[in-house]
Every structure is written in C-alpha cells, then in structure tokens.
C-alpha cells in the first residue's frame, strides 16, 4: 500500500472518528467476481502460476472486533487453471486433486488475531482431498467506506494433502511448496 493511500485512509478514519460515526462495519458479503485466488508452484526450477475461478465464502469481519471474525471458504477444484494445458489435463486426476471424489477444498477459520496497523493473523483448517491441516495466514485489510479488501498469502506442502501421489510424489520435478495468494473483496451487507 502506498503512503498516500495510508494517509488518505488514515484521514478518513480520523474524520469518521471526529464526526462520531462508528468505524465498525460488519463485512459479510464476499464479492467473488472481484476476488481472486491464485497459486504458484515450480516445475524443475520453472515458476508456474495458476488459479481458481469458482469459489464462495461466508464472512463476518468487523475490523474493530477482529477476534470475533470468522471466514469459511469453499473452492470448486474443477475450476482450476494449473498454468498450462498439459497440467490442466493432469490435475483433476486421482493422483492430483481427484476432483471426482473431492470436488471442494475448504477453509474454516478458528481464530483471528489483530497484529495492528491493518494486519491480521488468521488461523484455521484447510481441507483438501480428505486431508485436514491447520494453517496460519497473515492477512492485510484495507477498507473504503463500505468496501473492504483482504490480501494474503501462505504456502503449504502439496505432499501433506496428497496432491501429486505415486510417481508424482517425486519432488525434484514438481516442488513441494505451493504458494497461495488471494485477494478477497467484501462489502458490508445490510
């Protein structure tokens, strides 16, 4: 975020506080079309980017009461783009995401902690392909009036979720870490 943006946002908050308007707002509608979930992996030293076009989320987030926040996210795995036509042919298969048996990846937050200055730490459970692991995700939040944007990134090891089994468990070809980056745009519903 730029300094001017910070200043601008800061002054809005200051104005709102001075005028006695509560800055509290419950951001509870995720605007999926303006949100984005992408990922990055490496194949023999070559970085490849992909993403998911279909997902849905239930959100309740009040920046003044971050500890009470909750998010639940469902990603339709069949909407994957693994970055190349060859990869897209493979990835729905049994050894990779096995979308036929496990069509949805799910994240459910357990705790949200404020780290100050619009930074939060979300811990929760990520389930993919029948494997569930706790993850910790640093998230930054920015809002303008009625709209808030969450940006975050985390990485997980694909082997922990059985993504790439059998011969594909060879980590020297497709590396273990999968870096996930997301942008979620939310509005404060009535």
């Amino acid at each position, binding site marked *: 975020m730029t300094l001017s943006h910070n200043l601008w946002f800061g002054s809005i908050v200051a104005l709102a506080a001075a005028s006695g308007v509560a800055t509290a707002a419950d951001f509870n509608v995720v605007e999926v079309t303006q949100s984005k979930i992408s990922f990055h992996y490496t*194949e023999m030293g*070559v970085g490849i980017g992909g993403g998911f076009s279909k997902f849905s989320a239930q959100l309740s987030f009040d920046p003044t009461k971050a500890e009470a926040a909750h998010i639940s996210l469902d990603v339709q795995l069949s909407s994957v783009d693994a*970055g*190349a036509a*060859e990869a897209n042919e493979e990835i729905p298969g049994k050894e990779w995401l096995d979308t036929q048996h496990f069509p949805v990846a799910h994240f459910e937050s357990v705790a949200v902690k404020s780290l100050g200055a619009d930074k939060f730490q979300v811990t929760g459970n990520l389930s993919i392909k029948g494997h569930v692991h706790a993850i910790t995700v640093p998230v930054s939040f920015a809002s303008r009036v009625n709209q808030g944007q969450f940006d975050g990134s985390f990485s997980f090891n694909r082997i922990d979720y059985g993504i790439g089994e059998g011969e*594909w468990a060879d980590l020297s070809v*497709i590396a273990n870490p999968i870096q996930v980056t997301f942008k979620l745009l939310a509005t404060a519903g009535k």
Partner: protein
Amino acid sequence: MCSPAAPARFLASRRFKLQLDFVSQNPRYTHTAVAFHWLLAVALGGAVIFGFYVHGLHMSPSRIRMVNWHKWVGVTLFLLVLLRLLWRVTHPAPPLPPTMHPLVRLGANLSHIGLYFLMLAIPVTGWLMSSAKGFRTVWFGLVPLPNLVGRDAQLGIRLLELHETLNWLLIALVVLHSAAALKHHFIDRDDVLVRMLPARTKQ
C-alpha cells in the same frame, strides 16, 4: 556401372587433372569448422531423435525431466550454431570444385543456407512454443529466458506443429546433404567430402 577401364580413363582425364589442381590449390575446412560440423551433426541428430521420442511419451515426471533436458540442450545447440555461423562468416568455406554445374552449385549454396536457417529456427520455435504453452524456458534450471510470446494454448499447438514440420525439413535436407556428399566422393571423385573429414595428417 563402370567398365574395368573406367578408373584408368578417369585418372587420365582432363577433369581429374582439373580436380587435382583444385585440391592442391585449395585448403580444407578449418579444424574448427570440421569440429563444429561433426559435433553439431551428432548433437543435433541426437536432439531431434530425443525430441520425437519424448513427444510420444505419456505425461510423467520422467517425461517432464526429459522435456526440460531437451529444452536445455536446444538452447545450448542454438548458441553453438550461432558461434558456428560466426566462424563461417569470418572463415569462408573453401570454394566448390569448378567442375560443378552452376545450377548444382546454386543448389548446394541454397541447401547450406537452408540447413543454417533450420538449425536456428528449430530451437527458436521450441523456445516460443514453450512460452506459449505456459512454461518459461530456464536454461539448466538456472538462466531464465524471456517469454517472447504470452501464454496462448492455440499458439502453442501451432508452434508445436511448426517445430515438428521444421524438424522433418531438417531431416530431409540432411539426407540430401549426405547424399550429395557421397555423390561428390564416389561419383564425382572430388574432395568435397574429404575436406570436411577430421584431418588424418598435417596439412
């Protein structure tokens, strides 16, 4: 094909004398040019055969590993061909025998230009194809090459077809090139083939 007297007649012919003069007056290819020729003949031949082999394999980690090696070798060969071309430009090839018909001479020159063109165009189409398919080429996993085209699956398929077609053209030209060299040696009996062989004796 030849009567028993034919070799003797050939040795006594004016044509043979002309060739003897030509050979004594004209140098061979330089050692460097000879080394480039045979190194690239073997390495390019290997890369072409390996490319066709890998193309036919089912997707697997070993296929990905082989595809990457094919790309790395291709980039290396592209650089070697550039060096070879630089050498060729700065060290002109020995002239063709004067006994050659002008049209045959033109054919020889065109086929050499074609060979150089293909030796450069084939790796370039491979590189573009890799980019279009969504895979950046990273030489030996260390040196990333720029993506000259963006990800475009359809373009990737067309570039794959072009890469393959150019390889078939290269194979056809190499067959023609080898046949011509053998014709020069066994039928025309000139030094065109010998001067590209590794030198056995000091020149």
